[in-house]
């Protein structure tokens, strides 16, 4: 999917969290958005995913404006999100959590479920198979029957990723997926992201940890105080003095 953000702005209490941000992510690209704390990364993420509405500006998925659509409609358009906090669903198994991810791509409703119509049974079978594939992929297959909230934090993050993949997304948004992970988990995540990128999935990766993204991303957008201050390949961005200044503070 081609993602275009045009002049997006969002203020909280009179302070701009994101101000006039534009960026274009080409289909199949892995784009990283980096910046110091409070740069507006998470706000930008929410403006694309639909968790927040923009005050001004556009968001386009494959050319279609989506900035007025609620999050669940955007999910149906092919965007999947992995939140920074491990938002797993309690009181449900790991497998059920991942099955929720397929909601956007399936249809059967209350009536079909209540009466166990054939359409519902078919949907259920397909959802279960798809969810198991995603669990295998994220290394959670052995945990399928466990209660989701019993998983260690690192696994809960993998679970969120499995849930996002179960929607068969065309654009994957990841908000600081590596934060709080141990080195081995971080390596596994990097491998998984590389694999998804190789399959042609468009990925937007918001990350505080610059080292983690520099080796993964095709291009990097740098935010500071809600504005784009640099954009380019990892090597180009690293060489820009304003990026160094933003991270180290004005000298």
């Amino acid at each position, binding site marked *: 999917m081609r993602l275009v953000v045009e002049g997006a702005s969002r203020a909280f209490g009179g302070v701009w969290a994101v101000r006039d941000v534009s960026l274009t992510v080409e289909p199949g690209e892995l784009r990283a958005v980096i910046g110091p704390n409070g740069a507006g990364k998470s706000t930008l993420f929410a403006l694309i995913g639909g968790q927040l509405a923009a005050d001004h500006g556009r968001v386009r998925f494959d050319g279609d404006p989506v900035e007025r659509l609620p999050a669940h409609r955007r*999910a149906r358009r092919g965007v*999947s999100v992995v939140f920074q906090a491990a*938002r797993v669903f309690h009181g449900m198994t790991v497998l059920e959590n991942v*099955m929720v991810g397929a909601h956007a791509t399936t249809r059967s409703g209350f009536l079909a479920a*209540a009466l166990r119509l054939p359409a519902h049974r078919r949907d259920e079978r397909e959802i279960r198979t798809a969810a198991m594939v995603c669990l295998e992929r994220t290394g959670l297959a052995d945990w399928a029957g466990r209660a989701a909230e019993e998983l260690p934090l690192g696994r809960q993050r993998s679970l969120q990723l499995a849930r996002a993949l179960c929607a068969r997304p065309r654009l994957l948004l990841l908000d600081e997926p590596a934060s709080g992970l141990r080195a081995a988990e971080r390596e596994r995540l990097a491998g998984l992201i590389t694999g998804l990128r190789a399959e042609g999935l468009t990925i937007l990766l918001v990350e505080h940890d610059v080292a983690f993204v520099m080796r993964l991303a095709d291009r990097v957008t740098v935010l500071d105080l809600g504005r784009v201050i640099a954009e380019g390949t990892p090597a180009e961005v690293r060489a820009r003095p304003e990026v160094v200044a933003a991270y180290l503070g004005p000298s």
Partner: protein
Amino acid sequence: MRLLLLGAVTLAIPPLLPERHLATFVLFALTATVTVGVSLLMGYAGQVSLGQAAFYAIGAYAAGLLAVHGAPPVLGLLLAPVVAAVAAVLLGAPLLRLRGHHLAFATLAVQLILLSVLASADWAGGAIGLQGIPRLVGDDLGYAYAAIVVLTLAVLVSRNVIASRPGRALRAAATSEIAAAASGVPVGRHRLAVFALSAAMAGLAGGVYAFYLGYLSPGSFPVLLSIEFVVMAVVGGLGTVAGPVVGAGVIIVLVQLLNTLGTQPGMPGYAPSVLSYAVYAIVLITCVLYLPRGLVPALRRLRIPSRAG
């Protein structure tokens, strides 16, 4: 297999019961049906309704009014859940924007308004009540079986929905609306649907109730009844399919026992009502203190000893 056995046992109970207990059984099955809906709403969708008796009343009055005006009883019975569900959709659209306690109080207010409207509506019999509702089946045994059918239907629908795509979506939204929406779940629409489904169960039970009693008045649907449904759901165990049925059974039997005790010779005249009010308080407090997850999960844990976690 276990289900078949359970069904056979349930069907064998009514003929074995003496006449006076048969009435209690019908009341139990109808109350349990409403409680299944309340439990679905509270346990899986994370919404509290303190006005579920309003939908019970709407179903009962819909069936009763139709029958009084000459419609065949079966038609009234079929329309009772539909009318209750439509009422829930109309009320729920604004109400479900409210969260937690606000929704609980709003549903309570809806019931109070409905009761005062019914009490002053001449076409519904007013405060005196709606009389002369024809019978649906011949005897109490027939009503016992009608009530079993209705309860079975509610349990099956509830079980099917919980383990389905919309059911998982609801349960997900109960933990995190944001994450559920991000997975493509239209949270508001699903909540409205389950609110309507729980109202339909209450309405269907209300329909049977109308034909069983043959007489309806606003006094048959007090606020205490709505609270009863919630207590039964909590005591039985939220988030289980069997919980509401067990909860309704335990409380109805307890109330009956206390009623018998209260009407013993030598007891003061206020004893029955004091005892039955007290039972809700004591059962609820005991349950919250010692069995916070309800009877059914507690019994399950006894049978499958100590799973980690």
